[in-house]
């Protein structure tokens, strides 16, 4: 049982708006290395992958990232989660890819790695939030895809997944191999890493692959959409801060205000 989990290196989504700028020339955010983190839903996927592996005799987890050298940081993190292997694919000219191209390249990388019974991704990366990589990989690999999955269970040669549904949730069953895109849930809260595992992860190998190692389709490795402009939009509202000395006074003012504005 080979589980591949796809990890993206993204701008920290919790960066305070005050420190967030878009470069007016490159249209990319001005970031320092310390602002980059492992995408949060991908981290939930990683946690789930490790849990599944530990329950399944003989299973292995490969962490896979399409990214430049800086993104090895998140692969080290995956190794500290005790992933069995880490693979990074990269070419200089892949700077401006979108989810379609990334999905194609990752799918071909997985083929190159000998395939996988289960491929996990986050459901939407917290930077651009395309929500495309999982479904595109499934289409490329011609296997099923279950999106918005919170829990997974291996059931012989099938995969049982609980996923968000309109007004509740569904449990679905698909044959393996399959792609699942993961959302956060109580059961996949990322573990606290052990110092020992972090240390061991430092010396583990990371396999680096390039386009010539993969059997890429030249058209499909081109992005389907290109960013032509980006800007921060000022959505600040003028807030009327009510004056008052204590909660009681403030509550009174707020009550009067809501009534006067005919909101209540």
């Amino acid at each position, binding site marked *: 049982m080979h589980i591949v989990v796809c990890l993206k290196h993204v701008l920290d989504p919790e960066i305070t708006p005050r420190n967030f700028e878009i470069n007016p020339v490159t249209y990319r955010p001005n970031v320092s290395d310390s602002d980059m983190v492992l995408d949060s839903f991908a981290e939930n996927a990683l946690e789930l992958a490790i849990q599944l592996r530990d329950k399944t005799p003989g299973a292995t987890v490969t962490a896979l990232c399409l990214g430049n050298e800086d993104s090895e940081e998140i692969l080290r993190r995956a190794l500290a989660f005790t992933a069995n292997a880490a693979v990074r694919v990269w070419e200089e000219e892949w700077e401006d890819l979108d989810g379609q191209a990334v999905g194609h390249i990752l799918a071909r990388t997985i083929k190159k790695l000998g395939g996988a019974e289960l491929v996990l991704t986050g459901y939407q990366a917290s930077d651009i*939030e395309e929500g495309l990589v999982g479904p595109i990989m499934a289409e490329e690999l011609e296997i*099923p895809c279950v999106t918005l999955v919170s829990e997974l269970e291996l059931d012989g040669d099938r995969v049982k997944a609980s996923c968000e549904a309109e007004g509740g949730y569904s449990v679905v069953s698909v044959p393996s191999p399959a792609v699942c895109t993961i959302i956060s849930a109580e059961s996949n809260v990322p573990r606290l890493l052990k110092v020992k595992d972090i240390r061991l992860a430092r010396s583990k190998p990371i396999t680096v692959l390039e386009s010539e190692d993969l059997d890429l389709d030249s058209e499909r490795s081109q992005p389907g959409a290109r960013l032509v402009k980006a800007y921060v939009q000022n959505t600040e509202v003028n807030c009327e801060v009510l004056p008052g000395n204590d909660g009681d006074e403030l509550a009174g003012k707020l009550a009067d205000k809501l009534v006067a504005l005919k909101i209540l």
Partner: protein
Amino acid sequence: MANILVFAHQQGDFLTPGGKEALAFGSRVASSIGGEVRAVLLGTTSEQSAKEAIACGASIAYNVQNPLLAEYNVELYVNCLYDVFQQTNADMMVVSFDRMGKDLVGRLAARLHVSAITEVVDFKTNDEKLTWIRPIYGEKAFGEYETTRLKAVVGIRQKSQDITEFTENHIGEIIPFEYTVSKEEIVTKLVVKIQAALSDIRLEDARIIVSGGRGLGGPEGFSELQTLANLLGGTVGASRAACDAGWVPSNLQVGQTGAVVAPDLYIAVGISGASQHLAGITSAKTVVAINTDAEAPIFKRANIGLVADYMTVIPALTEKLKKVLV
């Protein structure tokens, strides 16, 4: 003239909100670049929703009638929409990026060998060239994108379109679309569907929402908010931090990955106002923030602000309003 195919999803005899948003968006694109909107409806219904699609701007409604399509199944829907796209020689397909859209957009685009673009809220035209506008970086910025292929599947962000205006007297034609579906195509098998316990008012429909965050310090604070919400005929919401802490169930989460709400009044209590939270309340009419930190970003979105400890304000507010309202 561009042929814009819209997936007009229906449930029962009515279009879903996502279906209507996709139609509203498709119609705007059509009138801007000179195109025609054609809706595709899947399932087994009367012609009611096809008529609704026409009222929403479609000049043709392709009705694919098949009992197997009555229940959503990703493989059947992808196969069928693929077929309709090809056979009607569409230039673009517009789909709501709702629960279903998240399954469909990527798969359809990959199979059709066309561009995919998701979470679109708006567009611009420049010499008939379209650029798609969507939020990026957790709603901290907007990006404008060009699609690189001739055709595209466009996923529309939920709750981003105005669906109020449509005209009953718009004319169009309902065309039955022949499509043979086989059970064999189903790969994803539904085991069980579980309806969440319905709270009295759905967040999405609530007129008044009192929301709590990490600042409440624990689940107890939420019962104070519940009392206030009950008095106002509203409902309780929460930030992701409060849901993740297990203080309230996750279906109360408001924001980018939770409910997108549009109440008349949104009271944010002990919520800092992260961009991902604000993404859920862009359509709220009046926002009141109660927070001990005058520098919290929520005050940049709120219309009325109280810099105070919620514990001193909320019970007093409930008492005051009881007198005024009851």
